[in-house]
C-alpha cells in the first residue's frame, strides 16, 4: 500500500478511535518490538504488547467523538521512513463524561516501510497549543 493510502486510512482510524474503537488504528501500527507510543500524559510505551494495551486503554476513555479537522504542518519523507507533523482537532466525550470536550493534539507520526507495507512505528502526541515555560507540567 502506498504511503498516502496509509495516512488516509489512519485519519479514518482516529475517527473510530474517538468513538472508542482502537482496532483500525491498531492495524496501522507496526507490531514489532521497537514500535513506540507517546500518548498525552505518562511516559512513552515501547513494544507492540504495551502499545496495543495503551491504545486499548486510551480508546476506552473516548466516546461519541471524531477528529473534525487535521492541519498538516510539515513532513519529512524518504523511500523507507517518513515523518509527518500535524495538529489534530478532536471532539469526544472523555472519561465517561456526558459533555463533548474539544481539544487539539500536536502529533509527530513516523512511518516505516515494513516489507511492502507502511506501518506507524512511532506516534508522539501532546495537547500543548499555547507557548509555556519548558518546565511546565501538563495539567488537565
Amino acid at each position, binding site marked *: 500500500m502506498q504511503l498516502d493510502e496509509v495516512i488516509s486510512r489512519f485519519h479514518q482510524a482516529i475517527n473510530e478511535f474517538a468513538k472508542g474503537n482502537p482496532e483500525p488504528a491498531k492495524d496501522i501500527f507496526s507490531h*514489532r518490538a*521497537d514500535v513506540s507510543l507517546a500518548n498525552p500524559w505518562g511516559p512513552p510505551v515501547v513494544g507492540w504488547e504495551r502499545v496495543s494495551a495503551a491504545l486499548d486503554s486510551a480508546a476506552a476513555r473516548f466516546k461519541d467523538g471524531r477528529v473534525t479537522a487535521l492541519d498538516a504542518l510539515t*513532513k519529512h519523507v524518504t523511500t523507507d521512513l517518513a515523518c509527518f507533523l500535524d495538529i489534530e482537532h478532536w471532539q469526544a466525550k472523555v472519561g465517561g463524561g456526558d459533555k463533548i470536550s474539544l481539544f487539539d493534539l500536536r502529533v509527530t507520526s513516523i512511518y516505516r516501510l515494513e516489507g511492502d507495507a507502511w506501518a506507524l512505528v512511532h506516534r508522539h502526541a501532546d495537547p500543548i497549543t499555547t507557548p509555556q515555560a519548558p518546565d511546565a507540567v501538563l495539567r488537565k
Partner: protein
Amino acid sequence: MLPVQEHTGGMIDRDDFLAWVKSELYEAELALHNGNAAPRRVLWSHQEPVSILGAGRNAYGLQEVEEAFTWLEQMFSDCTSYSFELQAYDVVGDMAYTAGMEHISTSVNGEPRTFTLRATQVYRREDGQWKAAHRHADTVSPAA
C-alpha cells in the same frame, strides 16, 4: 535492551548513529541547558524542512528554529544533570529517529528546576553527517 532490526539499515550505520547520539548530540544538549546553543546549531540541519514542536513553543523553518534556540539558551543556565533515556530508534537509509525521555536539572530564568521531557527527534544524513531536522518534546509527570 533495545530491539535489533534485522532488515533495516546496516549494523554499522546503527552503531555509528547511536555513537553520535551518545556523544556529539548529548554534549550539544548538555551545552544548551547550560545556556549555550552553539553546539546544537551545528548539529541541526541548515536545510528546510526543519521544525520544532517544543515543550515551550513551536518553530517552523530555519528562522523560527534559530529564534527558538536563542530563546532557550537565554532561559537556561547551570545545568546540574542531563541524561537521555533512549527508548526506541531506527536508522533507515539517510533518515533516523529517536524516541525517549530527557531527564534534566537546570535553571530556568535563574531558578533551579528538575523536569523530564518526552522527546522525539528526526534526523537526516546530509553529506555524510547526521543532522537533526525535527524535534517534538513535552513535559511529562513522573509515572504514578
